[in-house]
């Protein structure tokens, strides 16, 4: 079937990942500055606020370290990275594909034997998964390092007392990676589907982009909830 598609259209089937690499540059490499900057700012805000509250409620900031680390790795890092990617990449993919749809380029492609639904969506999902898996650790690192610096500067907590790596376990890291994979798959999928559903003119392109961002954001939040619940149940021993 792959050979047949290539003979008909001259285009290699996308599950060979070749095309995915093209999208990886746009998705991951170009998003790197955005992720580093926004996660760093968010990390400082979160750490500072947490430290103030810890001082007020408990009387000390040192207890914040382990939980800050766990929340960053399992929650804030992956989720904020994914939300930034939804804004940047999700809307971009939807706009790009919507443009092809409203200009009937996808129809023409299908007339010549191509399968727009598969060939436009799958490479982007590949790129999304790989990109997110690469970017989430970078986002987590930015969030952690900036928060640690903030707490060290304003609350005199040395970094070795704040960065409690030994409090992280395999389940936390698995949680982060599963989220990265799921986010990376769902963001381009939703965006591509929104783009393919566009009907009309320039207005439809805008609506598709907006829909991709909204649906992508809600999907990220619900996937986050689902994975967090499963991990909590695993930790509890209620699952497996």
């Amino acid at each position, binding site marked *: 079937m792959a050979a047949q598609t290539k003979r008909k259209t001259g285009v290699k089937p996308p599950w060979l990942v070749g095309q995915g690499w093209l999208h990886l540059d746009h998705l991951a490499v170009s998003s790197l500055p955005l992720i580093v900057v926004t996660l760093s700012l968010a990390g400082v805000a979160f750490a500072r*606020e947490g430290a103030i509250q810890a001082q007020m409620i408990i009387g000390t900031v040192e207890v914040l370290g382990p939980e800050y680390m766990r929340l960053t790795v399992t929650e804030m890092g992956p989720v904020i990275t994914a939300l930034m990617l939804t804004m940047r990449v999700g809307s971009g993919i939807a706009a790009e594909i919507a443009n092809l749809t409203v200009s009937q380029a996808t129809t023409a492609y299908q007339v010549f034997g191509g399968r727009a639904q598969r060939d436009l969506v799958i490479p982007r999902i590949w790129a999304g998964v790989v990109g997110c898996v690469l970017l989430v650790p970078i986002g987590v690192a930015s969030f952690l390092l900036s928060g640690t610096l903030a707490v060290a500067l304003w609350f005199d907590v040395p970094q070795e007392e704040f960065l409690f790596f030994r409090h992280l376990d395999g389940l936390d890291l698995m949680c982060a990676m599963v989220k990265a994979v799921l986010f990376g798959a769902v963001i381009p999928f939703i965006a591509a589907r929104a783009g393919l559903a566009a009907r009309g003119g320039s*207005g439809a392109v805008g609506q598709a982009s907006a829909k991709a961002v909204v649906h992508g954001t809600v999907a990220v939040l619900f996937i986050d909830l689902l994975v967090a619940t499963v991990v909590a149940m695993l930790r*509890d021993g209620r699952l497996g």
Partner: protein
Amino acid sequence: MVNLLNGLFIPIRWLLPAARLLRRLVGVRPDFRETIYQLEHFGYQSILIVIAAGCAVGGIVAVHAATYVANYSAGELAGWAVGYATLREVGPLLTGLLLAGRVGAMNAAELADMRVRDQIRGLEALGLDPMPIVIAPRVYAAAIAGVALFSVAAIASLVTAVLGVTTASGLKLMPFLYSLHDGTSLSYLFVGQAKAGIFALIVGLLSTHEGLQASGGSSAVGRAVNNAAVASAVGIVTANFACTWVF
């Protein structure tokens, strides 16, 4: 490396246009009927999706709060954790990012479409100023809708979080509600609302600016939405950072 260095200027690059547009809006009286229409469009039509997102946020807070109760036997702190996270910290940030998509992207899409199809030029050709007719109503409606929608999201988050924590951790509802009441200060609500208002204003300003910059065809509309979504998200994260020093 150059990209990373350029990235450091991202917040400034996005927030300066917002400040310029805000200055232009000073003294402009928005068309009342248009503002009501946009309020319904941005606010009322977003309620369901905000409730859904609020429930998701509440559920996430509940999962983590229940973990603290289990790990540290800190039942008395669960109420504080839920209140703090949903009202003051995580709730406003995640709701703001949702609004960046729901309101910001939509606003930019509509304005960009109006721009490329000369609807705004049509007003100018008749000597009508688009500022009070098209621009100001959208910015004000986005800001007002943002504050109102945060309240909706906060209620949804709180209810979900309370139900989630009491179900998952075995804490009884009434004692938990007392701990929520004792641990949560009214300032959390005010800070959350203030943050939501600031975030919503930033979303309104940046999405309006990006929408009005569109020129060309349908690809320009897509670019405007993309820029608006990214700009709004960066603006919110930056404002959240600044708010830690103010509130």
